């Protein structure tokens, strides 16, 4: 429960134990001394943007012309106009995936990409990125694959690399890393598209998902807001129905890309990056709605060497929350199918299905509706539980959420820059005031009316944290239930 968390004033959503592996070491949590004083000492940061563009591994002497060598896409303005291309190829240079267009048609470019990587590698170096104007070419070589992002989105090299890592993990989640390596050990000329039929769709979805959501950037998941009593009832229904099932590792209930609950086997944790892959699988697979499904699934951060087996089903036609029961026992389908029926029945009797539906049907309140008119939007991430919350999107970002995300990504990059990380970022422009604050316990990104001055901002943030604290047991999953 949240009793322990009550003792901490400035880290809403913190819990004594997390169901998620957190992205950063939690060793310092005890020494946490985040305080509003940090904000009071803040200096407006006018340093210009070029932090993002400095990369020690730049290879300036390679010029990458875009002259046609034999395909039609290069003349296709639609194709050329895409703000971010993603390519995956084998280390032999064979095409595996292209976000846009048929990868067959520009096989020669895949050759160029492989050659560039190899050319730099021959000097015992590694090619990370090439910068041409406002376009970044980012390379990630993860044996046996090469992943390339060509982006005009303004995202930093490390953010683009992180996205490529997700793409790699998506492929691993379908095949396992051991199988992937084994395939290329046996046949270096293997055409991986054979085994990845249908996975293009998952990668497409993953890219759209991560481009349109802050959760990937934050390395955190958002929970479906629910009264703590309902969430606890759901968790215990799962625990009761599954406690006798051997080898069940995780039970995950999610709806609309929000986590409802996660029950885990003692000692085992799930990484947010693995959870994002699971969200993506559910998001991209309409067919899961038509039947109970049983599928192998590798969670790369959990164990890249093997498959878990997942019983995946929606709770019922009248409650579109998706339940995944992940086990290491490949014969467990019927056991889990039975457990699922019991869970649904318990939830139905306890009116939890209604509770979930109500939350799903309610639009999240905007800051103004919550009583913070000067506050336009914010992201709050609790580090110790790897969960985040964002309010509903109000004016002026309703039709341009993308711009808001770009602001957040840029701020996130400034806080996490490897060369010069900031604790605090305060930017005032004619459009808005942006404040980003990284403490030991949380990260907060706030966008305010441009007229808000510094002292008002500080006061508002204090109030906001208090509000989140009050709401924490509804907005966050504070328990870490186990079987």
């Amino acid at each position: 429960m949240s009793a322990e968390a009550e003792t901490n004033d400035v880290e809403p959503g913190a819990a004594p134990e997390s169901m998620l592996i957190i992205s950063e070491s939690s060793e310092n949590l005890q020494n946490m001394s985040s305080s509003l004083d940090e904000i009071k000492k803040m200096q407006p940061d006018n340093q210009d943007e070029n932090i993002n563009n400095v990369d020690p591994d730049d290879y300036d002497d390679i010029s990458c012309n875009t002259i046609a060598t034999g395909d039609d896409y290069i003349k296709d303005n639609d194709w050329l106009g895409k703000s971010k291309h993603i390519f995956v190829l084998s280390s032999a240079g064979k095409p595996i995936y292209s976000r846009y267009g048929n990868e067959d048609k520009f096989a020669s470019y895949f050759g160029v990409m492989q050659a560039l990587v190899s050319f730099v590698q021959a000097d015992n170096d590694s090619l990370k990125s090439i910068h041409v104007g406002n376009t970044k070419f980012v390379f990630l070589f993860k044996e046996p694959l090469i992943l390339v992002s060509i982006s005009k989105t303004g995202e930093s090299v490390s953010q683009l690399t992180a996205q490529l890592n997700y793409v790699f993990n998506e492929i691993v989640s379908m095949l396992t890393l051991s199988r992937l390596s084994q395939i290329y050990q046996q046949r270096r000329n293997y055409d991986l598209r054979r085994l990845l039929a249908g996975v293009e769709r998952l990668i497409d979805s993953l890219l759209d998902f991560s481009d349109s959501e802050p959760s990937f950037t934050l390395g955190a998941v958002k929970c479906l807001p629910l009264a703590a009593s309902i969430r606890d009832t759901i968790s215990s229904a799962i625990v009761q129905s599954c406690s006798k099932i051997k080898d069940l590792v995780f039970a995950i209930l999610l709806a609309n890309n929000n986590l409802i609950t996660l029950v885990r086997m003692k000692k085992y944790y799930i990484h947010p990056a693995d959870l994002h892959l699971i969200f993506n699988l559910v998001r991209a697979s309409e067919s899961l709605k038509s039947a109970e499904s049983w599928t192998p699934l590798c969670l790369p951060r959990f164990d890249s060497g093997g498959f878990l087996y997942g019983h995946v089903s929606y709770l019922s036609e009248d409650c579109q929350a998706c339940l995944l029961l992940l086990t290491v026992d490949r014969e467990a389908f019927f056991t889990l199918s039975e457990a699922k029926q019991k869970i649904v029945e318990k939830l139905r009797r306890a009116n939890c299905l209604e509770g979930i539906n109500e939350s799903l049907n309610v639009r999240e309140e905007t800051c103004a509706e919550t009583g913070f008119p000067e506050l336009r939007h914010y992201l709050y991430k609790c580090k110790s539980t790897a969960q985040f919350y964002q309010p509903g999107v109000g004016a002026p970002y309703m039709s341009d959420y993308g711009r808001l995300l770009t602001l957040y990504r840029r701020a996130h990059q400034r806080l996490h820059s490897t060369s010069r990380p900031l604790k605090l970022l305060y930017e005032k422009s004619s459009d808005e005031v942006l404040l980003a604050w990284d403490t030991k316990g949380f990260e907060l990104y706030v966008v305010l009316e441009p007229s808000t001055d510094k002292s008002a901002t500080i006061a508002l943030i204090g109030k906001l944290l208090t509000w989140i604290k009050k709401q924490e047991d509804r907005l966050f999953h504070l328990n870490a239930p186990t079987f």
Partner: protein
Amino acid sequence: MATRKKVLLKVIILGESGVGKTSLMNQYVNRKFSNQYKATIGADFLTKEVQVDDRIVTMQIWDTAGQERFQSLGVAFYRGADCCVLVFDVTAPNTFKSLDSWRDEFLVQAAPQDPENFPFVVLGNKVDLEPRAISTKRAQQWCQSKNNIPYFETSAKEALNVEQAFQSIARNALSQQNHTVDLYSELPEPISLTKTAPRNNGDSCAC
């Protein structure tokens, strides 16, 4: 089964500088081949679709630079090739003599599963020129001695045999593909929980 994608073949073209590799490519794709990357990174690339019987295959052709300074890239370039095309100039004996070393180097660098049966094709180019230094018979003998490598005499200039040679290249590479073992017949090992070390905090990478 269930392969909707066209087969994609990686084809490497090797041979001494000046034997006409690039001209062959030009001829083959009916267009000026730009050669834009060769001087910088040691290879140039071309995509071409070919029909072999009832199948359409995509050839990803790697035209490599013959210079010394790119030799170190061998491993990376040759890795995962489906076919290797060795080109010499029938009027220049040294280019024929070096075929052995090109072939050997390829086999060393690419380290294919089954080097004995790896598909090569040999092209004797510039047959339109005189005087001829390497007879058809001599070239054929060499090819036979190397486990019957198919041999074509071509003229990039006069478009002689170029199409046929590349057909044969595609067919040979494809035959190799068909031997693909069923990599997926066995069920992969499930995770053994006792072996998976429980992980908690301290996993410091956020990506």
